[in-house]
């Protein structure tokens, strides 16, 4: 067996070979190789990312040994980027690792086109001014950007990208696609062909619950003017209706039907989330549209036409008590319908592609198939430019956070992380960086923070004294335990972004190591 398969076995079980292939194709650029940055990369290198480029202009100093595992005494005086890079290379020789000995701030100023070669840029420990500039560059070049910062016991992670679309969002819980209350003709006629009152006790206890529910739902609809059970009372009645058909306590299929009866109660048609996606203006496609939006355009047509208001059928059915023959029959009917739906979508995709002047075969069938299977679970993530968030945050949210006990520390950290950058621009050091200046730094940071809050339109808002003191005590230290955690979070999000599986976090992530809290702010 090929070695990589064994080496990556445990993670292949999470994101599969396609996810792994996406990782292996991607190239990542790291800005600043302190502990936050190097820990982020370490996790990706272990997982087999394609290539890394470490950008850092500094030399290793004695102090780095206290928080960065990737440098040791022999590295002192050498390029930090070089030392970190060679450590990372040792972890996995399948990864292409290189380094550039240059300060990220300078690179951002002098060579913006440098960043367009990467799949993703991880910018760690950058101050506000550089963040804003880099964000514009990456947005322009359509490169995914992720900011990560550790500051004392506080952490910050923020994704920035115009639009991230996800087909395989892998929600933990999702209702089976069974169409129990809206069966298509073949399922309907299969159900009609099965008699619930069959005499043979063996047959009776092997009718799959799907059939039982389709039939009872149909019966209910007929006697309730086409409506489904909606109130608590009606739902209870519906279950009673099933129970009444049970002949003995050992009829597992009926027990399953009762337990699964809630699947009948979910409304027909598509969810409001999906409705929003098909209504998005991007679903009006042209030659610049991405494959994802072409697929959504086809889905939209499908729903309006042959789908009859529904998405393509997923096609799989859960385990259930049944005779093998009936189960296989049922499975076939679901599969056939799913395949027919794929064919219909595919036809629409091909014709849309042709219409917008693209090669009608440019989207492979496997992609269309996976899209159909996941069409109920599509996700779109859009991230504001960091500049917009910083200059004009969502004010009602911000004010809410400031007064909400649950969020006040997180938003306090958020404000203070920005305030320390302003502080540093004014006083040429971070607050508390020099023990001797602590006394005067605290009131300075306090007034810097109030000034910032005023600029944001939160006049008169204040932050907790304790938090300001704490922030000064951090003295801009990058603690290893916090860096390891922030690096863990950042790399986890990077994996979601690159594999295009799972849904990356939206908003600004704040870790509060004082009481282990972590929250997302939508600003």
């Amino acid at each position: 067996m090929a070695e990589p398969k064994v080496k990556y076995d445990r993670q292949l079980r999470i994101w599969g070979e396609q996810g792994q292939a996406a990782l292996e194709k991607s190239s990542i650029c790291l800005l600043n190789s302190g502990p936050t940055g190097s820990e982020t990369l370490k996790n990706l290198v272990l997982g087999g990312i394609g290539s890394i480029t470490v950008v850092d202009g500094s030399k290793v100093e004695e102090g780095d040994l206290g928080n960065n595992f990737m440098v040791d005494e022999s590295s002192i005086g050498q390029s930090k980027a070089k030392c970190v890079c060679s450590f990372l290379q040792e972890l996995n020789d399948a990864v292409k690792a290189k380094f550039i000995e240059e300060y990220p701030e300078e690179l951002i100023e002098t060579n913006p086109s440098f960043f367009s070669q990467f799949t993703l840029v991880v910018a760690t420990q950058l101050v506000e001014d550089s963040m804003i500039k880099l964000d514009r560059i990456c947005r322009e070049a359509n490169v995914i950007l992720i900011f990560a910062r550790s500051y004392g016991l506080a952490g910050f992670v923020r994704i920035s990208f115009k639009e991230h679309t996800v087909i395989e969002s892998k929600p933990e819980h999702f209702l089976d696609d069974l169409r129990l209350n809206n069966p298509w003709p073949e399922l309907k006629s299969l159900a009609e062909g099965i008699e619930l009152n069959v005499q043979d006790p063996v047959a009776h206890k092997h009718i799959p619950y799907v059939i039982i529910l389709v039939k009872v739902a149909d019966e209910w609809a007929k006697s309730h003017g086409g409506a489904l059970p909606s109130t608590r009372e009606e739902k209870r009645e519906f279950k009673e209706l099933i129970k009444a058909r049970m002949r003995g306590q050992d009829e597992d299929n009926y027990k399953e039907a009762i337990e699964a009866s809630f699947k009948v109660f979910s409304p027909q048609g598509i969810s409001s989330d999906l409705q929003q996606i098909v209504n998005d203006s991007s679903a009006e496609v042209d030659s610049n549209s991405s494959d994802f939006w072409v697929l959504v355009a086809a889905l939209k047509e499908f729903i309006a036409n042959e789908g009859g208001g529904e998405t393509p059928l997923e096609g799989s059915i859960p385990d259930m008590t049944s005779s093998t023959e009936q189960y296989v029959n049922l499975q076939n009917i679901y599969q056939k319908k799913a395949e027919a739906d794929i064919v219909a979508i595919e036809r629409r995709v091909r014709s849309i592609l042709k219409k917008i002047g693209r090669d009608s075969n440019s989207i492979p069938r496997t992609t269309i198939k996976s899209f159909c299977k996941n069409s109920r679970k599509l996700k779109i993530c859009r991230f504001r430019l960091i500049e917009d968030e910083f200059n004009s945050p969502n004010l009602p949210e911000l004010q809410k956070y400031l007064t909400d006990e649950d969020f006040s520390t997180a938003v306090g950290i958020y404000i203070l992380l920005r305030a320390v950058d302003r502080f540093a621009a004014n006083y040429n050091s971070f607050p508390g960086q020099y023990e001797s200046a602590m006394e005067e730094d605290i009131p300075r940071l306090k007034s810097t923070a109030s000034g910032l809050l005023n600029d944001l339109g939160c006049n008169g808002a204040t932050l907790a004294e304790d938090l300001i003191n704490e922030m000064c005590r951090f003295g801009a230290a990058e603690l290893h335990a916090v860096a390891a955690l922030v690096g863990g979070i950042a790399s986890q999000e990077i994996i979601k972004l690159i594999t295009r599986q799972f849904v990356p976090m939206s908003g600004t992530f704040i870790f509060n190591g004082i009481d282990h809290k972590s929250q997302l702010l939508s600003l």
Partner: protein
Amino acid sequence: MDLQLSVVKGAKVLMVGAGGIGCELLKTLALSGFQDIHIIDMDTIEVSNLNRQFLFRQSHVGQSKSKVARDAVLKFRPHVSIKSYHANVKDPEFNVEFFKQFNVVLNGLDNLDARRHVNRLCLAANVPLVESGTTGFLGQVTVHVKGRTECYECQPKPAPKTYPVCTITSTPSKFVHCIVWAKDLLFAKLFGDKNQENDLNIRSSDGASSSENVVDVFERREGEDIDDYGRRIFDHVFGYNIELALSNEETWKNRNKPKPIYSKDVLSDELAQQNGNVVQDSATDDGLSVSAMSSLGMKNPQDIWSLSENSRIFFESLRLFFMKRGKEIGNLSFDKDDQLAVEFVTAAANIRAASFGIPLHSLFEAKGIAGNIVHAVATTNAIIAGLIVIEAIKVLKNDIKSYRMTYCLEHPTRKMLLMPVEPFEPNESCYVCSETPLLLEINTHRSKLKDFVERIVKAKLGMNLPIIMQGSNLLFEAGDDLDEDMIANYEANLEKVLAELPSPVTSGTMLTVEDLLQEFTCNINIKHREEFDEEKEPDGMLLSGWTQPVSASEKEKEDKSINNGANSSDVTVEAVEDETGVVAVGVKKRRISETSEVAANAAADETNHKQYQVIDDEDDLVVLDGNSDAGNKRKRMQ
């Protein structure tokens, strides 16, 4: 910050486990200023560790984890003192005295058994424990301080899944049943300890022909050709035994009949011949690298093999075991990292599945099921290790108010990715830290002392070196230093039914069970009961007051269907509605992210905390709401 540095510098910490979490933890400890670290791990390094256990390289495969981890960190931080033990934490050298020398114990373990053991030693030695676990993107860190917070065993832990014997031997209905059969019965019978009890034939043949005759069937005869032997085994287990089972018509009245499969049906002679030929070419490998897939030229472990391919793998892997690894036969136990063993078990399970009309699975999937394989990535371990160190520092500072149990979620919930919860008080009815007596219902006229020792004392109470007493009378004692008279005496006792012991154990008797190594004692009240349900209570005894959920295994399927719908609030309510008044809700398995909303509720309202508990047997990271009180469970649906 100064205080922090001095407590960290002066602290002596014990790490148990140098795996995924352990590697990260050791590094983070060293870089956080810890100077005196001891680390225990019994494992050696595997290739599949390398995607996350970053202190290990390809060249270290096969070496001791604890030692390599120590050396790797020392290379970068030579001034830290790290002592490594390549040993099982359950070894007697790690007794209470040993534990007492530490200021805090940090667990990065992968199994429930060892976690319980360490919990007891920490309680006995009065050393705080920081416990952790991860699976995929999920993880958790919890703190356990004697008398202050709940101990690791205060809340129910899911026991490893068990299945009724007859489901495995005669009436499998899911693929996992076939895997258990292939792994625990067939594999163990052919390659494991011959003296072990094994149910492979007992139920499928009628009484008389079982024991003696059957043993011979599985033994390779003097000079028997290996291919003949393989076909004989194949025909016996997939053909003859199925025919035998079919002859018991009662069993199949309400079930679909399985179909016997014989080697002649699945292999043409030509194929069988070819089989043998291919192998000669690839004869150079040794030990664990021997593979039936590679000798048959099959590459993709994600393919689902046909019945005939499975049969070829079956014969080929059996052959390879005898030809290349003959010395190990008789001592093998299934190991998920043993490629040939995984191939054999996959093939055997698939052939059995085919016989019973159950869908076949790929080697990749089968391996996951057979090995209870945990999804594992570097990222989560890094996050969790960071949290452990932050928590350990609080423990060292005795900053009790700030202790937190933290859960790491896969999907942010209520804007949180990490969810902190204040630790619970010790559970007053916990049999481990509060010494509350347990109740055992058992048939005292039928169950032997041996059954009690195996099924209760060892399997459920997790004791290794038990002493069993009734009042001051010793009934049984385990250990190396016993004299022969006593051993003979205990041996005799083991074979007696409870009511006929020298000091009879009957309804109303209280037994005291003690583990000297764990310094843990517990009392069990005995209640006689005549009958037990073979399906639901396969042990033939029922322990209550103990922490096992009622029947996690059989519930699973239903859970899934219920939880599937949990994203619609309507559905969530339904799920609870279905359980009204049923204790089962209190013990159902739920994956943490499925309950994340619940969990977030808990964080918001601290009075709710008591009901949530994440348990991780690496494979089984689940949230249990441990409190079966029907009034409490309502709260989570607010």
